[in-house]
């Protein structure tokens, strides 16, 4: 409650129509303006403004010392971020697509995530890795991957995935201002969807989930583009008198165990939905966590609706791979009838 009041009191702008791509751009503008140590760099983020135009106009406004292109080498981009951080900067590198984070995994896991630990706090890594993520845009291979389980499993990283423009804005401010490394996963499929938003300063602490739709009969847990899908499911279910709660996890590390537990101990049923393959996906962690916290309250095992254990497929197969509304509805039915 106090949380809600505080939120409302936060210094807000009036509502504007923005896509998530624009909202993140606005956040980066604020960050570059407020802190001269913030640097934005990566492949094609300068003159082009990024392949998704998220950094559009930033180089023009802040100059090519603050916003610059790098050569095409993901590992060096993240390695450079480490060195810049050690020299007092606050790097906001972009890796162009999820699937091209793999060449940089060594730097991310072995260096970024543990440099503060290795140096006992002498070399903090206030790095925000912007990573256009997840599928749903019928893109080429390696352009539709979901790496959250890997990042969440890596000690020293924080991981966030916004689901709408307004939240994307606040979470970006929070991520970049944080003195810990944050992987900020941008759901590509939501980049272009415009909606009226108020640009707010962050108010919830890092690691807080949010209920985007309250409900009584079961909790749908999701992040990124799947939140919207779950809202659609909830609207459809409502027509049949089934009242679903939709919880937007947002922070994938740290996970909001309390928020999850609070919701599920009320609804007694949970369905977790994600795009990544099933096995060892983050859905398993959510299911394990919920079960540990709500074992006696649960009326059914947590259902997982996820991508299949197959490489992310091309165009026409994409809708067959991603969790469909039908699959989520069937899972809801399974949990209700359990």
């Amino acid at each position: 409650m106090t949380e809600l009041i505080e939120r409302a009191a936060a210094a807000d702008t009036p509502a504007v129509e923005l896509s998530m791509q624009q909202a993140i751009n606005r956040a980066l503008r604020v960050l570059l303006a407020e802190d001269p140590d913030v640097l934005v760099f990566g492949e094609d983020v300068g003159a082009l403004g990024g392949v998704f135009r998220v950094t559009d106009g930033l180089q023009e406004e802040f100059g090519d010392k603050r916003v610059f292109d790098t050569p095409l080498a993901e590992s060096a981009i993240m390695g450079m971020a480490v060195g810049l951080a050690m020299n007092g900067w606050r790097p906001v590198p972009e890796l162009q697509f999820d699937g091209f984070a793999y060449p940089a995994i060594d730097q991310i896991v072995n260096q970024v995530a543990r440099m503060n630990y290795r140096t006992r706090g002498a070399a903090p890594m206030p790095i925000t890795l912007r990573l256009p993520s997840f599928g749903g845009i019928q893109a080429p291979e390696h352009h539709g991957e979901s790496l959250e389980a890997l990042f969440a499993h890596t000690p020293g990283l924080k991981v966030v995935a916004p689901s709408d423009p307004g939240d994307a804005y606040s979470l970006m401010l929070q991520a970049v201002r944080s003195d810990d490394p944050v992987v900020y996963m941008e759901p590509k499929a939501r980049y272009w969807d415009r909606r009226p938003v108020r640009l707010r300063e962050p108010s919830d602490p890092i690691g807080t989930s949010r209920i985007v739709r309250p409900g009584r009969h079961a909790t749908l847990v999701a992040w990124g583009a799947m939140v919207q899908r779950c809202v659609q499911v909830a609207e459809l279910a409502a027509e049949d008198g089934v009242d679903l709660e939709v919880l937007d996890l947002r922070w994938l590390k740290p996970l909001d165990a309390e928020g999850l537990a609070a919701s599920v101990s009320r609804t007694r049923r949970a369905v977790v939905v994600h795009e990544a393959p099933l096995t060892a996906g983050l859905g398993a962690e959510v299911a394990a966590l919920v079960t540990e916290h709500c074992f006696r309250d649960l009326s059914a095992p947590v259902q997982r609706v996820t991508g299949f254990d197959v490489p992310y497929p091309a165009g026409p197969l994409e809708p067959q791979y991603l969790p469909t509304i039908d699959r989520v509805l069937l899972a809801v039915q399974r949990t209700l009838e359990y």
Partner: protein
Amino acid sequence: MPPHTSAGRESITVDHLSPDLTRALYRHMRTARDLDTEAIALQRQGVFPAYVSVRGQEAAQVASASAMDPARDFVFPTYREMAAALAYGVEMVGYMATHRALWHGGLYDVAASRFGAVNAVVGGPVPHAVGWAVGERLRGDDGVALAYFGDGASSEGDVHEAMNFAGVFGAPVVFFCQNNQWALSVPNERQVAGGSVSARAAGYGFPGVLVDGNDAGAVYEATAEAVARARRGEGPTLVEALTYRVEPHSTSDDPGRYRDEAEVRRWRERDPLTLLRAALLAAGHADEAHLAEVDARARREAERVRDGVATAPEPDGSELFTHVFRENTKELARQRRTWQEEVEL
């Protein structure tokens, strides 16, 4: 030294090559050009979600691929080797299927074509070529591997590791860099420290050759020499073909944001196809009548491929599960049933 600007040589020669070969080069380049045009049209019509053009790079691709032997060699492409695939004899409806997003790697038979799957990881397939080549030597066979990669790719760690492995193992591999001077929005000056990809070869102890990528005859000669060297067991060569990406990076790109159209126009005028056509005629390897016939044939072939790919059936959803493993697992069989019950419906 090839011209780093379009202000370079205005004509090329193919006097050193056989009439049959040069006519074949022309035919493939012409077909590739037409197919490229068709592909851009298909993208505009919404049949392809996106397309990466090879326009302006036909000489670099066709001439290099033509120097390879599809009966014993192996080619490792990136995502922009349509003209190379065509010249190498890949089944082109299957090749173009990747652009319709029917299957990421394309629908041609990689093993039969001896042409790797379309690979979207910049730099990623280059070590594969080295591994293949090392394997060839281990078996005592004389095949050669050729890895295509771009100027942007030259920045990736994998390309360095691959070259170093190739040098250490004396692998029969040709590293073929199409330097089209742009990696998406980033030009050579901000991509390639030192300014030359081919100059890197010296550091690995093997030859690096810079060649005019819009000169089909020169590209053929340089590649054939590299292939022959490799086949003789003398190890790798790095060939850098200097060319230019006259089209946007892909149909989703907006190059007006980052480069000067005047430069592009100048390079469009230095068209490899026009250059080759003139050289063919000058060498007396073909006359206008022959070329007109080739042009017509190319046109028909491009249309055949276009129609083939436009009407190819979409893969069945069950294909999601078919090739994940050679030896399937219970869990995946279970997921396939889920798919059947919940998605196929």
